[in-house]
């Protein structure tokens, strides 16, 4: 109550954010009730439904594109936090532990800090190229997400040339790095950009040749089809038929993502920050945003190609059926009618009060407000848990998404682990390794796979 009587200028930052939100919620609730009472909202819902029905593919595409683009933001935050925390543990430090529980909000705060920083254009740079370079780098990373199958039915576009599209768009990365290095009017940037170009094009070859074995076995380049072919138990995953291909692909992917131990393009202890030296503010932020999104995408591609994508390691359905756990939840929300609206409106209030009551009664040192806040948070957690459980039981897409994300983050962890453990290689070792070892190994893998396919075909 004291927060309301105090003048606005004396409020804390949290109060300034929360008070308008409370007002907004009350206003929205009133508007909703008014709309339902006058019959405006049902009419609007019907109209919107007909509009969506008429343009279903376009609506589906807009939703998918926005979801994919917005998904990259929390993904980058999670990976940055993982990197800070795990490398800290590897170095026997504590890592971020101030903002949020166990420092979990540290990377989010970093992101907002970059957003609020001055975006400075130094004198002498080639301004259009300088501005477009982060756009090209970010787009080359994020556009490959369009063909990545996240779960059954959850893929942007299922192209029959998915893999070729992936490498084609991913290859545009080089152009962005060269643009950044060239336009910066800085010798460090130029060296960094040229190093990046040499490294990325050299590792492009093992990366693309490493998956030829998978294409041969699958007979298709559609990523969705490749995942479907690996259904069954974990023994059907292509990594057991293509161990050398996986190894080559993984090493090349680390180099393509400019990650340690192959992070010579930004080598902060040698050439300051490489191509990103002259960048600041959000344009700088997008380079690193793109880098972390690329880590996620490359891990996702490894999962899709070699580790069965969204397939579960073991098919648990027979076991569940045997235990009598196959639940069929056919909740019919339509039957509830207007009752549903009251449930949505009253549910949070009643739930919050009910959950807050025990705290208020048992903890005499807690104020009413604190018990209410805790009750509200608990209520939300419960609702989220219930909804998650319902979705997981009802839709196989949720289970598929869980397995895809779980496998992908295993590889993200390996990327972070390598960064915390391995020293950076020398540039001549880097280039020599790509051309003298990985490329011949990839070709060897190709011919061995071809011979194996022929042998299996002859035996059949």
């Amino acid at each position: 109550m004291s927060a309301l009587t105090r003048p606005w200028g004396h409020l804390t930052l949290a109060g300034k954010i929360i008070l308008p939100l409370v007002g907004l919620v009350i206003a929205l609730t009133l508007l909703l009730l008014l709309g339902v009472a006058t019959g405006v909202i049902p009419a609007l819902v019907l109209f919107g439904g007909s509009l969506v029905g008429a343009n279903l593919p376009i609506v589906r595409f807009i939703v998918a594109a926005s979801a994919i683009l917005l998904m990259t933001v929390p993904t980058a935050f999670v990976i940055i936090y993982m990197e800070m925390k795990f490398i800290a543990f590897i170095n026997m430090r504590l890592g971020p532990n101030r903002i949020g529980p166990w420092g979990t909000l540290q990377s989010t705060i970093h992101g907002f800090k970059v957003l609020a920083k001055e975006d400075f254009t130094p004198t002498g740079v080639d301004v259009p190229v300088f501005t477009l370079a982060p756009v090209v780098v970010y787009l080359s990373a994020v556009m490959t997400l369009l063909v990545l199958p996240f779960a059954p039915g959850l893929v942007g576009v299922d192209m029959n040339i998915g893999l070729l599209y992936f490498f084609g768009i991913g290859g545009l990365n080089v152009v962005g790095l060269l643009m950044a290095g060239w336009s910066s009017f800085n010798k460090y940037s130029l060296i960094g950009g040229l190093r990046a170009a040499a490294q990325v094009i050299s590792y492009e070859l093992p990366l693309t040749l490493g998956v030829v074995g998978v294409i041969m076995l699958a007979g298709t380049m559609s990523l969705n089809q490749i995942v479907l072919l690996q259904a069954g138990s974990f023994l059907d995953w292509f990594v057991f038929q293509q161990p050398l291909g996986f190894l080559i692909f993984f090493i090349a992917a680390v180099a393509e993502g400019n990650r340690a131990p192959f992070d010579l393009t930004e080598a902060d202890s040698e050439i300051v920050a490489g191509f990103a030296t002259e960048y600041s503010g959000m344009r700088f932020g997008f380079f690193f945003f793109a880098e972390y999104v690329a880590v996620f995408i490359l891990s996702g591609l490894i999962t899709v190609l070699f580790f069965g994508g969204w397939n579960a390691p073991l098919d648990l359905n027979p076991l569940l059926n045997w235990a009598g756990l196959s639940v069929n939840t056919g909740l019919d929300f339509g039957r509830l009618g207007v009752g549903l609206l009251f449930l949505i409106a009253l549910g949070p209030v009643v739930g919050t009060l009910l959950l807050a009551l025990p705290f208020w009664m048992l903890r005499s040192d807690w104020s009413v407000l604190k018990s209410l806040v805790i009750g509200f948070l608990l209520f939300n957690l419960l609702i989220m848990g219930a909804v998650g459980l319902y979705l997981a039981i009802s839709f196989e897409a949720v289970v598929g998404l869980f397995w895809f994300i779980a496998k992908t983050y295993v590889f993200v962890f390996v990327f972070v682990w390598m960064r915390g453990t391995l020293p950076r290689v020398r540039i001549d070792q880097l280039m020599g390794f790509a051309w003298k070892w990985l490329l011949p190994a990839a070709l060897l893998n190709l011919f061995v796979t071809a011979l194996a396919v022929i042998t299996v075909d002859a035996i059949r």
Partner: protein
Amino acid sequence: MTGLWYILGFAFAGISFVFLTIGVSWLLSHRHKGDRHKGLPYESGIDTYGDTWGRFGLSFYIYALLFVAFDIEVIFIYLWALVFRDVLVGGLVSMAIFVGILLLGLGYAWRKGVLTWR
């Protein structure tokens, strides 16, 4: 054709996302012109000399040449791999000849010391 429209639409969405974020950052952040030292390129505290965009020793343009040769090879290999189950032995022999010629070129470059970074 619809695939192309999806790609273009997604590219447009991505570009809008980037420029919207940069726009929000432009609204949030402070801007200050500073003196001439603020705009100088950062080269570890030493004033820059000469022209950055002058002649520059590229010791690795040969990598780019090799890359072009091999990357076009990769396109052929992908199509070959796609139909491999139909061509089998004949396809393997012809691909071995094709890759063999390219490997001869790689061996020549290796022998000449091109693959050693200088």
